[in-house]
């Protein structure tokens, strides 16, 4: 059976890239966008979307298990079996509006417990293969309709991540408090000399021209917004502030179709806490930031999907130091105006010892690529051939992923 039929879609969708005009016409509202937030360091998904309905969860986590809903600082009830970490209360209204979904027990088919290999596999989209030359988001960009401008894809931060490496140009921009500060290169007498120096076809010249073009498109908008927002007060830092700036950029620049940001600090081997503590302190700004992103994008929210994922999950059993070690399956978060949320997707494998991967980790029942492919297919309108280019060797999707996005 072909994947498309499996997902119950019509076979008539175009396989070749659409022109920008056609794209705009077929899309209801503006251009469709995808934002990927990568949690580097392996977030403990079992404490994000807590399987409180399972006794084995509490047996395995006597110190760090998040309490059942209704108990003091317990999980926020989601669906009778799963609850949300209380530090993510900022996301509850999105859940209640059915704009937030989770896919549990998702992850990579590759068994590595190395952060760095596992991150690479999430980013290059080819689990187990180190030498893929580009990232799947760059391949995705190539599959989106022409023409490609300098700000079609924006990475938040001072470096370019592997996920966006590749043939097509990509912009990057740190969104800290100094994001919109003018630089000497913005002055014509300076840029004149450097425009000439960096006029070749080499990688440096290309990066230079891309950087100048991106600054020209993005910095002006951002500067005026930041002046209004701070009104002279010190500008906030941290993810909620950066997410609000990203939302503003997306709202102002209709060209941005892909955006990426990553957050660290999830490698909680010691004292990770339960309702309070280390993990909670990282989850709170993430949840608040995602809520700010949803609010800030405003009318464009219906055309936006946000995916939050991490390289692998953590051990089901807490370790000897009230933390967790490197595991396998995890939870993927999916948010957006067109998401059929309020539901935990995927096949829950259970936490009894016999159900665990290598007797220690949450098993992976949904390949992360099939979650992304479902979004690319339903939200960005890509066809099988394009999906196969973006994720070579893509396995068939689990049946219920096809229902995760409104057609």
């Amino acid at each position, binding site marked *: 059976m072909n994947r498309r039929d499996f997902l119950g879609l019509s076979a008539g969708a175009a396989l070749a890239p659409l022109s920008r005009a056609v794209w705009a016409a077929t899309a209801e509202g503006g251009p469709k966008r995808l934002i990927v937030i990568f949690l580097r360091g392996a977030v403990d998904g079992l404490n994000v979307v807590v399987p409180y309905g399972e006794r084995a969860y509490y047996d395995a986590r006597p110190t760090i298990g998040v309490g059942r809903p209704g108990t003091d600082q317990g999980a926020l009830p989601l669906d009778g079996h799963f609850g949300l970490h209380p530090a993510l209360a900022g996301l509850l209204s999105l859940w209640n509006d059915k704009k937030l979904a989770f896919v549990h027990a998702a992850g990579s088919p590759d068994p590595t417990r190395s952060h760095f290999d596992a991150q690479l596999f999430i980013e290059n989209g080819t689990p187990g293969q180190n030498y893929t030359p580009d990232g799947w988001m760059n391949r995705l960009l190539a599959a989106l309709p022409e023409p490609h401008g300098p700000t079609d894809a924006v990475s938040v931060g001072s470096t370019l991540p592997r996920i966006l490496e590749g043939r097509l140009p990509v912009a990057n921009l740190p969104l800290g408090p100094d994001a919109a500060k003018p630089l000497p290169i913005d002055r014509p007498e300076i840029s004149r000399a450097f425009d000439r120096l960096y006029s070749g076809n080499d990688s440096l010249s290309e990066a230079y021209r891309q950087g100048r073009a991106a*600054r020209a498109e993005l910095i002006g908008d951002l500067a005026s917004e930041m002046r209004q927002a701070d009104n002279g007060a010190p500008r906030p830092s941290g993810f909620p502030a950066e997410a609000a700036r990203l939302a503003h950029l997306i709202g102002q620049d209709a060209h941005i179709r892909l955006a990426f940001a990553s957050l660290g600090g999830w490698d909680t081997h010691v004292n990770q806490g339960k309702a309070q503590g280390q993990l909670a302190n990282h989850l709170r700004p993430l949840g608040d930031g995602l809520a700010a992103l949803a609010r800030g994008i405003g009318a464009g929210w219906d055309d936006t999907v946000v995916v939050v994922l991490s390289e692998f999950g953590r051990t089901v059993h807490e370790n*000897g130091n009230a933390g967790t070690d490197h595991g396998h399956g995890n939870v993927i978060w999916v948010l957006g105006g067109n998401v059929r949320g309020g539901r935990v997707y995927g096949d829950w494998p259970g936490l009894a010892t016999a159900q665990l991967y290598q007797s220690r980790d949450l098993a992976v029942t949904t390949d992360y690529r099939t979650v992304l492919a479902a979004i690319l297919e339903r939200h960005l309108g890509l066809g099988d051939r394009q999906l196969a280019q973006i994720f070579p060797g893509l396995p068939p999707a689990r049946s219920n992923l096809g229902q995760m996005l409104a057609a």
Partner: protein
Amino acid sequence: MPLRHLAAAAATYLLVCIPASAAESAPDPQARHLLNRLAFGPTIEDLRHLAAVGADRYINEQLNPQSIREPPELIQRLAALDTLRLDPARLFEMYGPWRPFRGGVKPSPEEAKVRRERAKIIVQQAAEARILRATMSRRQLQEVMVDFWYNHFNVFAGKGLDHLWAGSYEEQAIRPYALGRFRDLLLATARHPAMLFYLDNAQNSAPGTRGPDGKEIGLNENYAREVMELHTLGVDGGYTQADVISLAHILTGWGLARPNLRLGTGSAFMFDAARHEFGAKVFLGHPIRSSGEAEGEEALGLLARMPATAHHIAFELAQYFVADAPPPALVDRLAARFRDSDGDIRAVLKTLFTSREFRDSAGKKYKTPDQFVLSAVRAAGVAVVNPYPLLGAMARLGMPLYGCQTPDGYKNTEAAWLSPDAITLRISFATTLAAGKLPIMSPPSDAPRPQLAADPPLAAAPEGEPVDAARLEQIFGPTLTAQTRGTIAETPAQLRAAVILGSPDFMRR
């Protein structure tokens, strides 16, 4: 100044100055190449020295840094940084958080905050020392290797107590062994509280042990995994999850001396037999006899001598010094040298620096942010009084000093660092530095010192001396591309230094 210091200073001065004419008469691209790789970029003075002694002797000098006299000004500046000389126990005592059991008094939140503020001086002094040595030291290779090994055995100063120990870690666990034997380096890092805390081995205990508060504690895999994946064998080095767990068992009890235990040593390392999992183990197929602390020494010694470790270190060195994708034949030769010299770093580097692959790789490596910033300051010939604008620039470019959160350290490839934003920032930094507007030549204000990661690097400052373009042309002239030389010729005089320091040529080493 004591007399012998004066004599040393005079000798240094003579050594540097006599051969001036040689450098100018014989511009040698190979000399610039050596200084781009064995040093944080060329200076006029080092070019002259290299021209005088020749490449072979220069390499030998750099491999034996104790033979090189340091500039008295550097010695003096370092002497003022007192926390560099404190051992971990003393650092904890002077700057650590107050503990309830110390005199039974729990500090008020205000007191705790004051102590935390005060402790910032440790990382500030370590960072200042790093910048001063990188820009002024004549033992450049040693500084380059300190940078390399700190990054290889990375510790994030922002994690918990590690702000107390990152500087001591560099001074006492990395620097003494940077050109020594790999096994010594590995063991020194394994025992240092900075690493014990960072990768959590300080807490790694036999399952079922009772902690100081009576709570049950147990195994922690973090260090055991990363020491194999990142420090020794490499991720494809042939270990299994069972080896990770076995090594974690072996290293149980390797931890920190509790601050109220007065030990004879200031290292703050303690092997706690009460938390050790005794019993025979099998690690990487080798039986390990139950012997307490010695099990860890045996296992780490085993790791240091594994062929996979030799290959992993050889690859990293070749990638750092030669090419992003280093020639496999070179990596194999370096790995062989590593094995037959029992991990003698100096011997491996000598093989590397005298290889054809090294010689033929001039200008092919894209500079990391710290290499870019430091080489610009060195070429400009500016004496750094205030390091904060440089630290701020490194942070803004994505490479805050002591600020890499993850244990894999910073990458050193073009793919990792070349980005549209970074190139516009580098050019802007070059322009500001060249115009004399980077406030590095006057002392920092008394205002609270900025965090290393947040200092705005490009703030307008009182006018300083602009950088002399003629000096830069003297250093780089012969190696600049025609494109760059053409642009310089058509650029107004006051922008020429900026154009050189911001040129594509200067982005590579």
